[in-house]
């Protein structure tokens, strides 16, 4: 896998999350696509060995941004690095169909990341939408200020509605399109709540080895049996394709 060294142009602390901005020049990044990223220094460092997958938080044709939370050594080093290494955009993103009518965007925790770029693309295409964001607590919900008008829920009730993102998002069946990213149990609940009339697309969060389809590590079970790779066949899937 080819990595590109890029300078971190700006680092924003958003509560317990960090938002990194770096220069990137490419015509298009589909909302929902991701990169593998790590602190620069490889292969001199060798460890942590693997890069980590991150959805594009945003990309305007010049600057790309990644949202993450420090959870282990890989993200701890990423949080400190003045220079990082990223791959070209990977995976399949969200399909946008303006004919479907009003859209609902639901993010859980760090899974809010791809909803920023998705929301901008929907705006550009004239698709009206509502945003619902769920977090563990007020500390992790700070990023919600970047989503004006979004409904917020926290599990401990320290900000917004007390409960899950679905407690803040009622009447999902009424939307023509539902887009969601978050932990798998949340996505399964969103799929159920969205019903079968709307186009429901889910961006899964999986542990990844390579990001280019080679290691078969990041699989999700699909309806009809077997597994598909979330890095090349996803990470965005039509809800009905998934077994859960």
């Amino acid at each position, binding site marked *: *896998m*080819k*990595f590109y060294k890029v300078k971190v142009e700006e680092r924003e602390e958003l509560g317990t999350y960090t938002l990194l901005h770096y220069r990137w020049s490419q015509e298009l990044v589909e909302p929902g696509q991701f990169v593998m990223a790590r602190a620069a220094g*490889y*292969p001199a460092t*060798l*460890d*942590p*060995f*693997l*890069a980590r997958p991150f959805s594009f938080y945003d990309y305007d044709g010049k600057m790309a941004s990644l949202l993450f939370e420090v959870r282990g050594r*890989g993200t701890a080093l990423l949080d400190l690095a003045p220079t990082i290494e990223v791959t070209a955009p990977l995976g399949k993103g969200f399909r946008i169909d303006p004919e479907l009518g009003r859209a609902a965007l639901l993010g859980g925790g760090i899974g809010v990341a791809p909803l920023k770029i998705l929301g901008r693309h929907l705006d550009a295409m004239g698709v009206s939408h509502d945003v619902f964001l769920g977090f563990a607590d007020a500390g992790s919900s700070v990023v919600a200020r970047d989503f004006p008008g979004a409904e917020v829920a926290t599990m401990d009730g320290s900000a917004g509605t007390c409960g899950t993102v679905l407690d803040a998002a009622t009447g999902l069946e009424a939307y023509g399109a539902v887009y969601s990213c978050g932990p798998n149990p949340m996505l399964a609940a969103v799929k159920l709540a969205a019903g079968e009339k709307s186009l429901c697309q889910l961006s899964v969060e*999986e*542990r*990844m*080895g*390579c*990001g*280019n*389809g*080679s*290691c*078969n*590590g*990041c*699989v*999700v*079970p699909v309806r009809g*049996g*077997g*597994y598909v790779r979330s890095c*090349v066949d996803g990470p965005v899937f039509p809800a009905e394709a998934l077994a859960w």
Partner: protein
Amino acid sequence: MVVREHETGVDLAVELCGLTLRTPLIPASGTLAKEALGEVEGVYGAMLPKTTTPEARAGNPPPRVAETPAGMVNSIGLQNPGVENFLQDLDAFDLGVPIFVSVAGDTVAEFGWLCEILAGDDRISAVELNLSCPNVECGGLAFCAGPASVEEVVAACRAAVPGKPILAKLTNEGVVENARAAESAGADGLTVMNTIPALTIDARAQKVLVRGGLSGPAIKPVALRAVYDVSGVLNVPVIGSGGVVSGTDVAEFMLAGASAVQVGTASFVRDPQEILDEFTAYLKENSSGAAELTGALRGVRPVLAGGEDI
């Protein structure tokens, strides 16, 4: 920077089982998907797609991978579409270099059956036997768990595919004895070594995260020792594999006795072209061709195969 042979005058070619490989690098089985082929043109001396089995396998439920210090543990479960679909898709791996095919079966008969099918396919230059998979006729012990089962499965494959080189891929445990058994049963070469059995635990959730095989730079010294010991006592060529991430690593494996070197997990985290470029630069600095490195350290000190010599 891309270093090409015609620019550097460095001879990267090696001979392996009667085949000429334009570089000594080969992808390790299960680490290079069709989707990633665009990145590796010109890097490898042979192609080696993911292991194929008689029938399709869904593979193991996730989680399948976990990062570990300087490496990773994987438990994929040989997910693959089965040999029939595999062969329909094989042309995608034609990058103008020999294609090696890795096979695995549940039984000796399945190994033999697969080899028979591959024997008649002109696109395939060599067959690698993945002997780390469980032998269901021996209570699930791996085929390479001991020399008797190695000999039995290699002999069956030898008979089934008389016209192509077969390479026995072995794990570290008992590697010298198993290598002897493979050679005496007719293997043309050995791939040393497969991943090392390993486990990761999630202490917060108090559960096993991944029980599988360890790969990456963490296992390189183990693999080097295995290659050194095996190539010191056997005549068949050895393909080194285990933890290669740089051009210097490639050189180390060849100095230890390998005729070619597999790049596996490293291709997840590096552009394999960079590894070849580094290896080319190493050869240039040392005024050497690739093939001259093989076994250059042989006889420098006695090899006490299998012993715990220090």
